[in-house]
C-alpha cells in the first residue's frame, strides 16, 4: 500500500514549547519526538491541557518551537521566518479544521484555490485541478455555491478538497469531525481513509476514541509528553463497497436537500 515507506513526511525531535505568562512559564510541550512516514495515518489524542493544540500549531507551522527541530521534507521549520512559514503552509500543509473555516465571500472552487492563490500558482490548469478535487469530494455540481449554501458535511468536504490542492506533505485535521453528526462523521472518515489508501499522509487530532480507531497509529499526549505511541489494534477499516455506499448516500442526501 505504501510505495516509499522510508521517506518521511515529518520528523519531530525533542520538540518543546514554553509560554511565558507574566511570572510563570508554562511548559506546554516538554520534548516530543516522533516520525511520520509518508502514507501514515496518525491520530494524536490526549485530554485538554496535554499539549495537543500546541503540537497541532507546531505541526501546522503556525507557531515555532522554543526548542527542538521539526523537519518537513529536508527543511527545518524551527528556523524559519514568518514569510517562510506562510510559504510552507501554502505549499506543504493541508489544513482541515473543526469548524471548516471556509471563506464566506468565495465560491466552492475559489475556496479550494486559496492556497494556490497565496503560492501565486493560479492558472487555468490549477482551476481544472480544483474542479477535479471538488468532484472527487462529491461537490462537482456545486462549484459556484457559497459556503452558507452547503451543509456541514459538504463544507468539510470542500475543506478537505482545499487541503489537497497544494499536494501537501500531510493533511492536518484538527477535530475534523467534531461538529458533525455520526453519519457525516462516517462520511468524512471514509473520505480520509480513501485518501490515505491513495497514499496521502494524514495527521488528525481528536479526543474521540471512536474516530481514532480509524487511524493506523495513535500518539497519546499527557502533560506535554508522549504517553504512548503505538499502532492501532483492531483498526476500523471501511471496505471499498462501504466507501462507495457512503459516498453514494451522501450524494443522494445532498441532492434531496436541494
Amino acid at each position: 500500500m505504501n510505495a516509499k515507506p522510508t521517506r518521511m513526511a515529518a520528523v519531530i525531535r525533542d520538540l518543546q514549547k514554553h509560554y511565558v505568562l507574566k511570572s510563570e512559564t508554562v511548559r506546554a510541550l516538554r520534548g516530543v519526538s516522533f516520525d511520520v512516514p509518508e502514507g501514515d495515518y496518525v491520530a494524536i489524542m490526549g485530554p485538554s491541557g496535554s499539549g495537543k493544540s500546541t503540537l497541532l500549531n507546531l505541526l501546522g507551522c503556525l507557531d515555532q518551537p522554543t526548542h527542538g527541530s521539526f523537519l518537513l521534507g529536508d527543511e527545518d521549520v524551527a528556523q524559519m521566518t514568518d514569510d517562510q512559514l506562510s510559504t510552507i503552509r501554502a505549499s506543504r500543509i493541508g489544513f482541515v479544521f473543526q469548524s471548516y473555516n471556509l471563506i464566506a465571500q468565495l465560491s466552492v472552487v475559489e475556496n479550494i484555490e486559496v492556497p494556490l492563490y497565496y503560492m501565486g500558482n493560479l492558472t487555468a490548469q490549477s482551476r481544472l485541478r480544483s474542479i477535479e478535487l471538488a468532484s472527487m469530494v462529491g461537490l462537482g455540481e456545486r462549484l459556484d455555491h457559497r459556503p452558507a449554501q452547503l451543509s456541514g458535511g459538504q463544507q468539510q468536504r470542500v475543506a478537505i478538497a482545499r487541503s489537497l490542492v497544494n499536494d501537501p506533505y500531510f493533511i492536518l485535521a484538527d477535530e475534523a469531525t467534531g461538529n458533525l453528526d455520526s453519519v457525516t462523521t462516517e462520511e468524512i472518515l471514509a473520505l480520509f481513509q480513501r485518501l490515505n489508501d491513495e497514499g496521502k499522509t494524514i495527521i488528525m487530532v481528536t479526543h474521540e476514541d471512536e474516530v481514532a480507531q480509524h487511524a493506523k497509529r495513535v500518539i497519546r499526549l499527557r502533560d506535554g509528553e508522549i504517553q504512548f505511541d503505538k499502532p492501532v489494534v483492531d483498526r476500523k477499516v471501511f471496505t471499498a463497497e462501504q466507501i462507495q455506499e457512503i459516498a453514494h448516500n451522501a450524494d443522494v442526501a445532498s441532492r434531496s436537500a436541494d
Partner: protein
Amino acid sequence: MLHFRTVKLGTKSLLLHPMRSLLTVLGIFIGVASVIWLLAIGEGISQEAQRQIEDLGAENIIIRSIKPPDESGGNIRQVNAFGVTRNECSLIGDTISTVDRVLPIRELPQKFAYTGNANAKPIDGRLVGCTAEYADVTRLVIERGHFLTSREVALSRPVCVIAARLAEKLFPSEDPLSKQIYLPEKKEYFRIVGVLKHRNATAAIGGSLAAQDFSLDIYIPITTMRVRMTDQETKRTGGSFSTQVFELSQITVQVRSADDVPRTAELVEATLRQNNPGRQDISVVVPFELLEQAKTTRLMFMMFMGLIAAISLIVGGIGIMNIMLATVTERTREIGIRRALGGKQKDIVLQFLVETITLSVVGGITGILMGLFCPIVVDISRWGLEYFAPQLYASLPEVARVMRPTIVPISIPVAFGISVIVGVFFGLYPAVRAAQLDPIEALRHE
C-alpha cells in the same frame, strides 16, 4: 491575474455590507467633490475680480481726488479746493515721457430726467465730465450713436452719452438718441448722442470701497461741465449748505506699455507731491499692482479653499479608517484562515489596502463627476433663487451673480490623487493591524 483576483475579492467583501460601504464612500465623495467645487468657485471669483481689475486697464494709472474730512464744521464762507487740478493733469502729460495720454475726469452725483416725460421722477445717477478718449481708455463700448467727439469737447457742446441701464430707465419705450436730458439740480439740458452697451462693474479703486458701477452714468464733455457748472459744487442737505471745490475727480494716465507702469506711477506720485509730500487729498491707484495683488490674493484664497476641502477629505479618510478597523475585527477569523492557508502578512495588508483604496477610488471618481457638475448646479441654483426668491437674489453681491465657476483642470487629478492617498494612508493602519494578528489567536476567534 493575481491583482485582478485581489480586487475582485475586495469588491466582493465590500458588497457584503453595501450600506456600510456606501456611507464610507460618501465621506470621500463629499471630500473630493468639495475640493473641486471650492476650487472652481474660488477660481471663478478670482477670475471675476481679475477681470474687473483688467477693465480698469493694466497700463493705466488712476489718480483720484479725495475729499478731506470736514474740519471747519459748517463754515461755508471759506472753502479750500482739494484734489488734482487741470494744471497737474497737463503737467503729467507734458513732462513724463512714458505717458501716452492723460484723461481729466470730473464726476458729480446728479438727478436726471427726460424732458418728454414730465411725470417721471428724476433718476439718481452720475454725471461724468470727460474727453473723447475716455471711451477708448476705459473700454466703453457704444451700442448706438457715437461717443463724445474731440470737436464736441473742444466746442463745449451740450451733448451727452448715456449708459445702458440709465437709458432703459429714462426711456422705457422710446429711442433715447437725440432726446433731451434735463438735470433739475443744474437746470441744464443735454442732447443724447450715444448709448453705451451693458457693462459689469469694475474693481473698487481709490477711497471708495464699492465697485465702480458704470450703469447709471452720463458722459458730457468736461469743457461743457466746466463752463456750465464751474468747479464749485454746493449741496443743500437738510437745511444746511455744504460746498466743495474741486477741479477734477480723477485723472486716468495711460502709459505706453504695461512694463513702464511701476516707474511711471512713481514719477506721477513724485510730481503730484513735489510741493506737499504729506498731501492727503489724492490717491494714486495702479491697477497693474492691484492685478499683482489680486494674483497673490487668489493664491491665498485657493490655498484657503483647498485647506477646507482637505479637512473634509481627512474626515472622510477617518471614516474609512473607522470602518476598516471594525471590518478587521469582524473578519479576524477570515484573516486567521488566510494566514493558515499560507497568506503572508503582506498579502493580508494588500487585501485590506485594496478594499480601502477601492472605497476611496469609487468615492474619488464619483466625487469628480459631481465636481464637474459644479457650473451647472450653480447656474440652476441661481436660476432657482431668481425665480423663487427674487429679493434675496437681488441682494446678493454682484460677484455671486456674475461669477462663473471654472473647473481648475489640475484639481481633478489632485482630488483623485488625494483620495487614493487618503485610502492608502487611512487604510494602512487597519491593514497592518490585521496582518499582525497572531494566526492562532485569529483562528480561534469566534
